[in-house]
């Protein structure tokens, strides 16, 4: 199968691409960041997904399947840029896919879609709407991209669409939102709160995406591996020290004094859990994770001992 991966430069996308190659698929990638040292068989186009050159890739190669991984998290760019990349980019991917005969599309979204708040249920199912957007407006563009992707399910019936809401990933690459948060020696916590964090090994996450592509799953699916853990336990397993601070103090200190950068709205994400029920995905695709939650945290700790050097990879996304 000829598979196009917008956003192939990201760590997770690279792992997906390698797995597809190993399975004998043809892989084409789009990413302005490029991929230095990419395997030879991958045809790489360092272009912006919203530009004409990206549409040319669709036209020229006529991929049968697309795995859309060109979204960025709230921490990376300003609001306008995020909106352009996440929503504008997603729209372009779907429009090109429809126009150039793509049959299968996997949108890789995030479980943070559901939002974190005091009144939210612990386990989110796919039928729930996003919550707490008012307190964390930085998530709006990702939520909008997710909803836009999901409406392709009825808008573009000929395109077999799968929307994945994948939990945090962690592993030896040190890549991802959670890894970025855990990178320093101290893990900031809101005093008196210790939310569950749902995360899976980065290899399991790549396997899940490949499994989704090869399955007949059509619809919206939460993707997770092992059970969640309290943030304090993750910090401890990762060899870090939890640093509980009163919320007002923490709001002033994040991004300073060696603490990770965090927007004010994101503080809710270290007070309340976002945990997903991934039963449907497992049932539909047969996916099973290989790494349990403790092993996953330790693989990160082994690669990034507390106080060790920073990841050579791009900032988390």
């Amino acid at each position: 199968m000829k598979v196009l991966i917008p956003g192939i430069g990201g760590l997770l996308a690279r792992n997906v691409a390698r797995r597809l190659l190993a399975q004998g698929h043809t892989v084409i990638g789009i990413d302005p960041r490029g991929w230095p040292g990419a395997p030879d068989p991958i045809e790489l186009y360092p272009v912006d997904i919203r530009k004409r050159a990206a549409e040319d890739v669709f036209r020229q190669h006529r991929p049968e399947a697309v795995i859309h991984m060109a979204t960025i998290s709230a921490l990376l760019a300003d609001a306008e840029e995020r909106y352009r990349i996440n929503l504008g980019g997603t729209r372009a991917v779907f429009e090109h896919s429809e126009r150039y005969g793509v049959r299968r599309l996997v949108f890789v979204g995030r479980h943070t879609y559901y939002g974190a708040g005091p009144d939210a249920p612990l386990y989110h199912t796919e039928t729930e709407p996003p919550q707490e957007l008012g307190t964390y407006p930085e998530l709006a563009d990702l939520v909008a991209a997710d909803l836009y992707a999901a409406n392709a399910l009825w808008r573009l019936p000929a395109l077999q669409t799968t929307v994945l809401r994948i939990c945090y990933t962690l592993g030896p690459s040190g890549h991802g939102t959670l890894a970025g948060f855990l990178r320093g020696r101290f893990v900031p916590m809101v005093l008196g709160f210790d939310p569950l964090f749902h995360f899976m090994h980065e290899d399991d996450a790549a396997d899940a995406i490949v499994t989704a592509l090869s399955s007949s799953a059509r619809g919206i699916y939460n993707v997770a591996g092992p059970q969640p853990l309290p943030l304090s336990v993750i910090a401890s397993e990762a060899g870090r020290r939890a640093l509980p601070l009163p919320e007002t103090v923490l709001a002033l200190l994040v991004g300073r004094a060696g603490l990770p950068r965090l927007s004010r709205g994101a503080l809710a994400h270290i007070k309340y859990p976002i945990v997903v029920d991934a039963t449907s995905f497992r049932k539909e695709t047969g996916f099973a994770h290989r790494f349990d939650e403790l092993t996953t945290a330790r693989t990160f700790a082994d690669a990034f001992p507390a106080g060790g050097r920073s990841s050579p990879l791009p900032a988390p996304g």
Partner: protein
Amino acid sequence: MADEISTRVDRLELPFDARGVDEYGVSKWHLAVAFRVLTLLYRKYFHVRADGLQHVPPRGRAMLVGNHSGGIALDAAMVIASCFLELDPPRLAQGMAEKFLNRFPFASMWTARCGQLTGLPEHALRLLESDRLLLVFPEGARGTAKLWKDRFSLVDFGTGFMRLALRTRSPIVPFAFIGGGDAVPTVTNLYKVGKLIGVPYLPVTPWLLPVPRPVPLSVHFCEPLRFEGTGEEDDEIIQRSVDQVKERIAGMIERSRK
């Protein structure tokens, strides 16, 4: 006592991982700390007496349904302690915590780590489907707000618990809790002050603060009730079943208070 508590925590039949945490974030370490405190209160302060424990299923899904009394949820804490200390094997009764608790530092963390999830139908359904022991007070916050003079009465029951029991085919174990109203004899409730500090109300006792006094408490479990249905029945049908549970609890309160 510490050894007994640790042993009992180890004997809880819950799927803890190697760090002693289960899929809901219930933590063995937090349970051990909380039960040390609760055990002191249960045995030394309130001298709680429990009977009918044979009616609580040793494993599998079940719903403990009882009355509230006293300005704070002392009854919930003592029923949880009772199931932990008196059942063999011990069981963790998981209550539905008032929503405001999740907004407060420490209260949020400790309720979650001890398995007392926020009172949402989604949580109740999921816990029952995981074959847990659910603790429900269908009177809700109106029940804890009862004044001392009304301590043996019951206010209206919600019906959600019955629909859940039917949907999940869970047995209902009614229980009567006696003494909460004497431990925390509420003379009035300050609703406006409560709102200011983020709680539904602030109970006022003759000594002003809702600090419980050491009076004997007791919990009386009744035989399980099993109802047939899907949970989608009309309100009238559900209400009739709810009334049966309520009558059973009211009867047990009357018998036990004497």
